[in-house]
């Protein structure tokens, strides 16, 4: 595209140079006016040439290249920030569960929450692995709280004691 514009400008300047030389050589008189008119038409042809010869398909593919690059950069950044959001959600959920466990008498050693990507386009806590030696009543209560507060169903709560790990 740049080449096209460059050649067009050279064409205009070349035409102007030639017309200037021809006008300078033309002797004074009514013929000079006619020669000037012809030079004017030649200049119009040079100026309009780009509009006639311009390759619009090339130009739009030139535009779309930049758009593709921009989209790649943006999606890369969004992916990384999405991972960070997931990490924060998992951490917060783990802290929340540990806090609840302490309120119920403790005994929970480690918690590992795994987030999943929902259909609506957000991360949500989907699975939890709990390790510790909690009393069974406290364990039940904690499991209920996890279901009602975090929405992690019972079948996705994996309990294990210290002896099993």
């Amino acid at each position, binding site marked *: 595209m740049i080449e096209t514009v460059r*050649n067009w400008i*050279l*064409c205009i*300047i*070349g*035409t102007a*140079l*030639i*017309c200037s*030389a*021809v006008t300078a*050589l*033309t*002797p*004074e*008189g*009514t*013929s*000079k*006016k*006619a*020669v000037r*008119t*012809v*030079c004017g*038409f*030649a200049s*119009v*042809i*040079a100026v*309009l040439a780009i*509009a*006639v010869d311009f390759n619009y398909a090339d130009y739009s593919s030139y535009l779309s290249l930049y758009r593709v690059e921009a989209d790649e950069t943006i999606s890369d950044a969004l992916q990384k920030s999405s991972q960070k959001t997931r990490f924060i959600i998992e951490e917060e959920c783990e802290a929340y569960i540990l806090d609840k466990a302490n309120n119920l008498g403790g005994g929970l050693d480690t918690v590992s929450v795994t987030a999943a990507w929902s259909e609506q386009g957000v991360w949500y806590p989907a699975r939890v692995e709990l390790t510790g030696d909690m009393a069974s009543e406290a364990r039940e209560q904690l499991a209920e709280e996890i279901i009602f507060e975090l929405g992690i169903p019972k079948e996705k709560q994996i309990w294990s004691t210290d002896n099993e790990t």
Partner: protein
Amino acid sequence: MALLIAVASGCLALYFVLDVVGSITEFLEDVAASAGVSNAVLSVLVRSLGVAIMAKLASDICKDSGMATASTGAELAGSAAILYIALPIMRTVFQMIKGLI
């Protein structure tokens, strides 16, 4: 007699200047080739220049022999010839504009 001498010297001067004009035309062809100016446009411009020079010469010869009316006629004929030579260019411009609108 004076008129004949004037005509002869005019033609002689033209003859000697042909080489120079030839070099100028070559230069214009080089510029046109480098700048991408169409040969058709260049040939019209150079032919218009030639016609203008001949028309001026004819007009001045007529003035020298005291025929002012003929001189005007010669100039007018020269202008008309130039515009006739330029008809293809004018048609091209019209086609280009028609294509754009």
